[in-house]
């Protein structure tokens, strides 16, 4: 049972039913706890369809109003976070279309034909061992032990995620940062299993490439 001063963000997902009950009763602390827990994923999803952080924040605000309005109808059987993100996606989509920035289809398509690793890293066709590494990637386990957790490394990763096309960014943030399952992401973002995996592949491949440039200089 959480005390009023406890760190709301640390509550287990099971506590969401409790938070929702408190929210229905108009409890502001419960609202703040849910905002802290879900807003990051909501901003990521919004950025699939709108161009700026400011526009994404507007979408998130409208979405929370939609959540409050829909509370009575929300079925505890379905997943709260998926429901919330679907509200975000619906609002962001409408808004993105209005901004004449309706990118979803092209942005879902981008990347499928992009190479995970630059083709010049492999032996050319026609010679010996075509398609095999020219030189092997570096073994990161031989780096100094804290290399992957250093601030500079984290910054390089964040910078690269920030540069990804919106859909790739939304997918890698929900899957790998927020820890959602593939099924949850597909349901919330309205993606097919195949599209979700292509977007994740492109996003992870690009972040790996950024880490490689960071370590190899």
């Amino acid at each position: 049972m959480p005390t009023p001063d406890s760190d709301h963000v640390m509550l287990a997902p099971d506590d969401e039913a409790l938070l929702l009950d408190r929210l229905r009763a108009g409890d502001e602390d419960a609202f703040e706890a849910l905002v802290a827990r879900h807003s990051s994923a909501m901003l990521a999803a919004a950025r699939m369809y709108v161009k700026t952080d400011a526009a994404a924040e507007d979408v998130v605000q409208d979405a929370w109003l939609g959540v409050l309005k829909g509370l009575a109808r929300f079925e505890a059987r379905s997943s709260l976070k998926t429901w919330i993100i679907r509200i975000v996606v619906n609002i962001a989509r409408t808004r993105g279309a209005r901004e004449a920035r309706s990118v979803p289809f092209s942005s879902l398509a981008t990347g499928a034909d992009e190479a995970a690793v630059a083709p010049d890293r492999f032996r050319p066709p026609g010679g010996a061992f075509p398609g095999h590494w020219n030189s092997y990637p570096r073994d990161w386990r031989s780096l100094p032990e804290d290399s992957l957790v250093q601030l500079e490394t984290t910054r390089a990763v964040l910078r690269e995620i920030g540069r990804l096309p919106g859909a790739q960014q939304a997918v890698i943030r929900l899957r790998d940062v927020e820890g959602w399952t593939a099924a949850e992401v597909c349901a919330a973002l309205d993606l097919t299993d195949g599209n979700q995996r292509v977007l994740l592949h492109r996003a992870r491949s690009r972040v790996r490439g950024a880490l490689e440039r960071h370590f190899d200089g």
Partner: protein
Amino acid sequence: MAEHAEHITCQEVVELVTDYLEGGLPAAEVSLFEQHILFCEGCRTYLEQMRLTVSTVGRLDTGDVPDQLRDRLLSAFRDWKRP
């Protein structure tokens, strides 16, 4: 691409790695993939790099809600509460 169906190249491996990690490869391709990894040090290292990439991204702090947004949300909440 490959001359024989029984063989995949390193360039193909790097495109299959997410499907492999996600459990989305058909069984026949899983064994081609794993056989390649077994004999190719470069691709073994690459697979490890991808795993380390995923765990590094997983450690990112999603950060706090921007203050300005939180304030806007709270005042919207108070408006909602007041019928």
